[in-house]
């Protein structure tokens, strides 16, 4: 049997499975770190957006506008090509985490901001009347309620982040998509490589998406 999906091609792919396992783990590692920083950026910018300081607002909006309206590929090109010229040397993983976090953080900030706005203002006033400071009422009263609203869209952003980590293939990031691209090019075996790469991404993303969907359904029912 010949053709792109011949038995020989499958055997070749499976005999090199450890190469792909390494890429898979690297994808997980980059995504996890990226997600942590995304949440931090999203929380900080999202809360700042609820303030009234014009300068801060303009800064936050500028950040979100730029990072949402330019492609991640270009952003990664910039980190990869420009930072070394400024004397900042980062490894590909660091660039990946930075790039993914700044990009997804711009969306996360939107989610945090609208989740906080969705909590009735009476909650903040009530907290104030009980002697909570702004920060205290944020942490103890507003955010716990906002998390319920913001969690489903945030989970979808996590899936986007994992999928977008594939962009690191452009700078030889060593993650799963890079492994698929380079291994298939070296061995000229495409069929099994792409199918198995798809399956590996599905293994990470599908459970998270389905989880997000279930949460969405539940929150709709509760409204």
């Amino acid at each position: 049997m010949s053709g792109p999906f011949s038995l020989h091609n499958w055997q070749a792919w499976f005999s090199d499975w450890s190469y792909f396992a390494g890429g898979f783990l690297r994808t997980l590692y980059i995504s996890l770190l990226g997600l942590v920083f995304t949440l931090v950026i999203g929380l900080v910018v999202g809360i700042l957006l609820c303030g009234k300081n014009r300068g801060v607002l303009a800064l936050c909006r500028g950040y979100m506008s730029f990072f949402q309206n330019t492609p991640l590929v270009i952003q990664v090109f910039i980190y990869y090509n420009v930072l070394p010229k400024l004397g900042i040397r980062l490894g590909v993983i660091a660039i990946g985490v930075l790039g993914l976090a700044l990009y997804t953080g711009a969306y996360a900030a939107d989610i945090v901001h609208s989740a906080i706005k969705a909590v009735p203002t009476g909650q903040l006033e009530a907290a104030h009347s009980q002697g909570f400071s702004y920060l205290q009422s944020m942490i103890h009263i507003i955010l716990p309620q906002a998390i319920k609203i913001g969690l489903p869209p945030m989970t979808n952003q996590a899936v986007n982040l994992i999928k977008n980590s594939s962009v690191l293939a452009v700078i030889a990031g060593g993650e799963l998509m890079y492994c698929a691209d380079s291994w298939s090019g070296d061995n000229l075996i495409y069929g099994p490589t792409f199918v198995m790469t798809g399956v590996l991404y599905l293994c990470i993303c599908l459970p998270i998406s389905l989880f997000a969907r279930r949460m969405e359904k539940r929150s709709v029912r509760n409204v």
Partner: protein
Amino acid sequence: MFSNWAHAFSVVFTPKILLYLGQGLLNTLYIAAVSITLSLVFGTILGLMRNTKEKLLQTIAAVYIEVVRNIPLLLFIIAMRFMTRLPPLESGIAALTVFTSAIVAEIVRGGLNSVAKGQWEAATSQGFNRVQTMWYIIIPQALRSIRSPLISQFVTTIKDTSFCAVVGTYELSFTSKIVAAHRTIVTAEDIVLLYLLVALIYYVINRVFSGIARRERGNAMKGVVR
């Protein structure tokens, strides 16, 4: 450092480079426009399939949407480029269409579901059949909530075309990469200016669409009766 901007300008803003980037931009817009148009067609069909009572059609659409949505677009782009005989631009369009149709289907489905159930019952009581109800009652209302996420998706698709740079398609991102490697582009200023220019091009185009999307979202919210 960063003292020689005048020189950087003279190096980056040459007719040759600008024309080259312009050609890349045209290809980017071509890929995006055709992909969006095709995705609207296939996405709407998929979205309607997902919402029918026909179990088989529903399952096919659901599996397609869930599988495609959870795989990176880049995999489709690489697979289309290396496993089909399509020319570069067309293989990019094919990959983007496969991917974006699934997203559009979800938007369409969300829009259809956002129309209150009572509308179906009311239309049936007035003697509308299912197709008539869909066409005259449901779709016009669904469009109101669909428009904003759909236009946001345009922005995403325009950005997504940049993934085609990975397989060496001559769209804006790849052409910028080529220019960056050109022998005349040397200093930090040159590179910064080049990428700022490219980022600005993407930004201006996308900002127009995201502005429209935001306005549409405002309009849709105003129209909702709760």
